[in-house]
């Protein structure tokens, strides 16, 4: 297993380095001079030139790159050109919020999507199957930024059941920082009131975000179950007299889901992408809204850092998914 994990890590590193080079080139080659932004709103041309020199933007590109690699090697992705704060710190402050949001969405999507997909496969080509397929495809076709606004209007404004925005009520102290995930921290400290607060705040954004994921999960569960149902061991289980419920919900499903775990990485990528718009609408203090702000202020260092950090997380999730896959399906690790 250790060898398996190491192998996956080694495969990831060149890709991440490539991404690093790619983003650097994008940021610097393109006709974008960050000096003016750095110099400030009322800067004179002379001031801008001074900034350009001070930050080394007048150096040749390869030299800038080497300087940058050195910085990153020291765990420094540079300071935001807008706020002058270390971007990595800002991003890591916001990371738990995004992770909490995406994982809750993923969990919700899985809890609803897997049974739906399974039923659709069991009742293959039935009315339920057709309706479910259209609905899940519809889930993929709904623009999340549009859906988010609609949900806010209904559940936060009209019905007034759920909070409109944010991650925690203003003015109340958030849970003690252990993991940074409010839902987890509040439970760890047995503060059920805090858990409740965190929970009601996450419902709308997580639901919005989960929609596309739910649809994907339902779709690949359906496909997986259909495929697994053709397997010999299912026929055997039937002939050997396993209960039908157990065959489908335990034996077939486990195999289908094991096969589908590899899809979760891709799904996670989709969630992170949607989070960019959704976080901003729900005012969720995560990396997504940070990215939107960075784009709007042309904070190229922040954009670069977000891209890299998302890349690293994405890689980590994919490795994690592979490890879980290997753990669920004992044959995988041994084939290596």
């Amino acid at each position, binding site marked *: 297993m250790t060898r398996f994990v190491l192998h996956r890590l080694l495969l990831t590193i060149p890709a991440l380095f*490539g991404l690093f080079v790619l983003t650097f080139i994008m940021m610097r080659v393109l006709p974008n001079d960050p000096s003016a932004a750095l110099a400030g709103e009322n800067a004179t041309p002379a001031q801008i030139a001074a900034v350009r020199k001070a930050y080394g933007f007048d150096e040749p590109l390869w030299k800038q790159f080497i300087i940058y690699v050195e910085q990153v090697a020291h765990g420094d992705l540079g300071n935001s050109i807008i706020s002058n704060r270390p971007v990595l710190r800002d991003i890591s402050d916001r990371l738990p919020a995004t992770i909490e949001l995406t994982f809750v969405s993923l969990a919700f999507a899985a809890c609803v999507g897997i049974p739906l997909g399974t039923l659709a496969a069991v009742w293959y080509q039935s009315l339920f199957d057709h309706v479910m397929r259209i609905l899940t495809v519809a889930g993929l076709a709904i623009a999340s930024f549009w859906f988010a606004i609609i949900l806010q209007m209904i559940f936060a404004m009209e019905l007034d059941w759920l909070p409109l925005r944010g991650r925690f009520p203003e003015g109340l102290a958030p849970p003690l920082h252990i993991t940074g995930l409010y839902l987890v921290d509040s439970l760890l400290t047995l503060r059920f009131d805090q858990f409740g607060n965190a929970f009601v705040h996450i419902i709308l954004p997580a639901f919005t975000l989960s929609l596309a994921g739910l649809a994907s999960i339902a779709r690949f569960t359906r496909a997986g179950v259909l495929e697994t149902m053709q397997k010999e061991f299912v026929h055997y289980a039937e002939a050997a007299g396993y209960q039908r419920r157990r065959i489908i919900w335990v034996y077939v499903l486990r195999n289908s889901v094991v096969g589908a775990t590899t899809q979760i990485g891709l799904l996670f990528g989709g969630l992170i992408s*949607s989070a960019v718009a959704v976080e901003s609408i729900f005012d969720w203090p995560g990396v997504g809204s940070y990215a939107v702000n960075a784009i709007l202020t042309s904070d190229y260092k922040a954009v670069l850092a977000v891209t890299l950090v998302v890349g690293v997380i994405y890689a980590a999730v994919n490795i994690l998914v592979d490890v879980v896959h290997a753990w669920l399906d004992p044959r995988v690790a041994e084939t290596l």
Partner: protein
Amino acid sequence: MLILKKFLRDVPAVLGFCIILAMCLIAILTPLIVPDLDRVYDGDLTSRLLPPSADFWFGTDNLGRDVFARVIVGSRGALEVALSVVALAIGIGVPAGLYAGYTDDWGSQLVMRLTDVFLAVPQLILALSIAQLIGRGVNSAMVALALTYWPFFCRTVYGEVRRLRSALFIEAQRSLGASMPRILFVHILPNVASAVIVRATIGMGFTIMTTAVLGFLGVGATPPNPDWGLSVAEGRDYLPQSWWAVTFPGLGIFITVLGFNLFGDGLRDLVDPRLRRSR
């Protein structure tokens, strides 16, 4: 014929096909449906944000332009963008995939490692940073999407070619002395075409959605383009009173993406008997 019969029995796929057909018709017939482009670009400020009526079927937007006309003309733009992106991505991805799949040299390695790099970040995130860096506008959004979408085609083709490479009929061609381009384009390409077509169909829907998100985030189409995503973004400040300015472009995105996804799904069921599914 059997395939057609099987396809016709797949109700959602047929529905998807009908939607695509209708959308294409609308896009082609735009000049007939909306003869007066002034309604698209040139609003009357005194009639801004009017609710749907006999005169303005979908109401008017914040500059008094006809939302119906804009949604209709927007369909053309959406399809054009999606087609260009997918075509560009195929143009890069398929030859690259053919080459990388067929050969074993360092070039093949390079291509595949390059796809690793592009796939190391979720597509939208990368497209977002590329689009915002090369300057805003439909064209840069298109370039950004194509640049981030080709690896998907490359991977698909690569996998198929690897599978086919050792097939008997290819071996036979090779021993007959057929050149590599000939083998690739005459013998292998037709065999990977179905996989590419399926991915392209689903990619159309996916691209329309991603373009809309880029438009919404302000790195896509630019005013006065009646782009759907941009229209939703422009209209969202007028919610909830002027719901029509947001809802109809949103429905445009929804229905078109739905059509491509349903159809693509059905195609995949036909083409890929293993029912393997991904995005």
